[in-house]
């Protein structure tokens, strides 16, 4: 027993070690790119670090950037656990955000303690239904969810664009809804940072999804369907219901991500507010091995790279686009863990030879 526990620790250590080494290797590649293009890598990386973790505000802002990614990453991972590739989180995030903006703005006279949960609920429900459609189509007609979620991304963005311009637009030239009521705003608890209690909501979601997947019957069945739907069916599991449910829950998570942006960051639905949180969620989920703990770290990595890279481009002459390139390289290396393994093996061999 103790033996396996030790083994598990070692396994976790290894699992954690590879991404660290991979990130280092990627940054090394970044150094080369910067030297070739005539930038000072030391300054650049100092700025990168400063932007990501350099101060409490920087850390808070990094976590703020990561907050939607925890949720979109979870959304993608959850669907994956049921064998579904949800590329539609971006759309679900949009409809969820719009629902949050509307409920946050027009549902008056409620105390925050009621208004916030109701607003979140609205976002989750609307986005859940939105994601449930491709889930239902998959379960009922066996149509591929990848097509339908891609299509529904476009439909969602067109739809919210219509709503924000023609239905719920606040006066003025900006395509956005009115500011949501204070009772629906997520409390910001660090001065000069937009980090808000949405972070805790995301943490709770991470834990709940972990719990749901591994400690409850629902999770057992969803994973069973994901691994082998035929065997699941044979064991009396309702495959179709699980597919729809997995998509709905996935969509709800995406919707919550959108709600957090609206209720904690922008305070109204602004057209184009998402730089692609839903798509980033795909990488976050898979980089995190579809496991909540992994997602926790990969989302922070993405948040740190986004903010640090941006700081780098602001504070040094390194252009934004180069920062983006370095981000891509990091993702490459972290994904290609075999490369890190190769590196470790070489080291080990080298040591043995000594």
């Amino acid at each position, binding site marked *: 027993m103790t033996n396996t526990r030790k083994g598990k620790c070692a396994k976790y250590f290894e699992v954690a070690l590879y991404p660290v080494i991979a990130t280092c290797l990627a940054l090394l590649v970044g150094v080369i790119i910067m030297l070739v293009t005539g930038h000072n890598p030391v300054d650049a990386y100092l700025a990168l670090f400063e932007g990501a973790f350099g101060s409490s505000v920087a850390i808070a802002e990094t976590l703020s950037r990561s907050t939607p990614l925890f949720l979109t990453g979870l959304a993608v991972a959850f669907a994956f656990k049921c064998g579904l590739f949800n590329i539609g989180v971006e759309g679900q995030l949009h409809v969820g955000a719009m629902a949050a903006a509307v409920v946050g703005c027009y549902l008056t006279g409620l105390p925050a303690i009621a208004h916030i949960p109701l607003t979140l609920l609205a976002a989750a429900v609307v986005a859940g239904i939105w994601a449930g459609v491709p889930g239902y189509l998959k379960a009922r007609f066996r149509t591929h969810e990848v097509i339908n979620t891609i299509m529904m991304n476009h439909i969602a963005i067109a739809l919210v*664009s219509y709503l924000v311009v023609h239905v719920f637009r606040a006066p003025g030239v900006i395509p956005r809804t009115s500011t949501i009521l204070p009772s629906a705003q997520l409390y910001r608890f660090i001065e000069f940072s937009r980090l808000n209690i949405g972070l805790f909501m995301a943490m709770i979601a991470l834990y709940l999804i972990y719990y749901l997947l591994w400690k409850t019957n629902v999770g057992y069945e969803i994973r069973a369907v994901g691994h082998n739907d035929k065997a699941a069916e044979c064991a009396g599991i309702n495959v179709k219901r699980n597919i729809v449910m997995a998509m709905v829950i996935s969509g709800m998570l995406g919707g919550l991500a959108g709600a957090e942006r609206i209720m904690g960051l922008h305070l109204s639905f602004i*057209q184009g*507010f998402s730089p692609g949180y839903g798509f980033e969620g795909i990488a976050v989920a898979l980089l995190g091995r579809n496991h909540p703990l992994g997602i926790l770290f990969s989302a922070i990595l993405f948040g740190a790279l986004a903010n640090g890279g941006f700081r780098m481009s602001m*504070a040094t002459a390194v252009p934004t686009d180069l920062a983006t390139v370095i981000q891509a390289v990091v993702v490459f290396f972290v994904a290609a863990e075999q490369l890190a393994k190769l590196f470790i093996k070489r080291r080990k061999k080298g040591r043995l030879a000594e």
Partner: protein
Amino acid sequence: PKEDPEPVEEDAKVEEDAKVEEDAKVEEDAKVEEPIRIGIVYSVGGRGDLSFNDAAFVGLERAAKELNIEFTEIEPVEIAKMETSQDFLAQEGYDLVIVVGFLQADALKVVSERYPDTKFAIIDSVVDMPNVASLVFKEHEGSFLVGAAAGLMTESNIVGFMGGMDIPLINKFQAGYEAGVAHVNPDAEVKVVHVATDGSGFRDPARGKELTLIQIADGADVVYHAAGSSGLGLIEAAVEKGVFAIGVDADQNHIAPETVLASMIKRVDVAVFEAIKTVVEDRFEARVHVFGIAEDGVGICGNLGEHASDEVIATIADLKQKIIDGDIVVPDTPK
């Protein structure tokens, strides 16, 4: 391609230049060349949009040449980074922080409050703060003039408008254009399309081209756009089909001199330059500065004379005067 938009009024420039030299001298006397530091935060997408970001840069570059300033640019890549960017520049002690685009308004409200001693200027939106100058344009007035040109030039009585997205700012262009067409040619029909429902509407020239080709097939023989880089597709389609195109924001005549009838120029560059100058000259005014036809902030430019009769040109000049005089009030939302 960013051209130096040849200013409408050469004289004004000369005058300005003279003034600048004077100012510079004054300053030299006062202090030894401590350049004014200008920070600029572009809108999402950054430079290369052939629209306000590029125009703002032109103004900035001119200021760098003519005034004693140095500048830093930031492309925020996502809306959430706008606040970070503005904050960064303010914190670094820039004398003037210029923010481009209506999307920055929310962030600026917060940041300008946080840094009451920093001067800010925002393009295309109004932020009511004691340290913010809001520079807004009457795009509809300029669009009215090019609309009139289109209405006068069309033979088929069908003209086209292509917006990047269906959003209020773009709708201002559409409203003015439609009013201009209707004013001179009540029988003419304006066909309206939008490229997309997200930001790609401003950078999808291939789609812009197909949309325009359809408008042309439907009979349009003058097409106007407010679609950033997608508009390049419109011009390409017009070239291919031999109809007139109308450019936007800057003088786009050079892209296809034969085809581009005129352009609706929006002098973001002038606004930016002027804003910088007020800071250099220490006469910054935190209020709404409106740039309409009267202020030469918007207008019609290009080689209209090459393509149009004197009569047309005269009509347009007349309309321009009427707008300045307030005889014509151009609507800023489409019917």
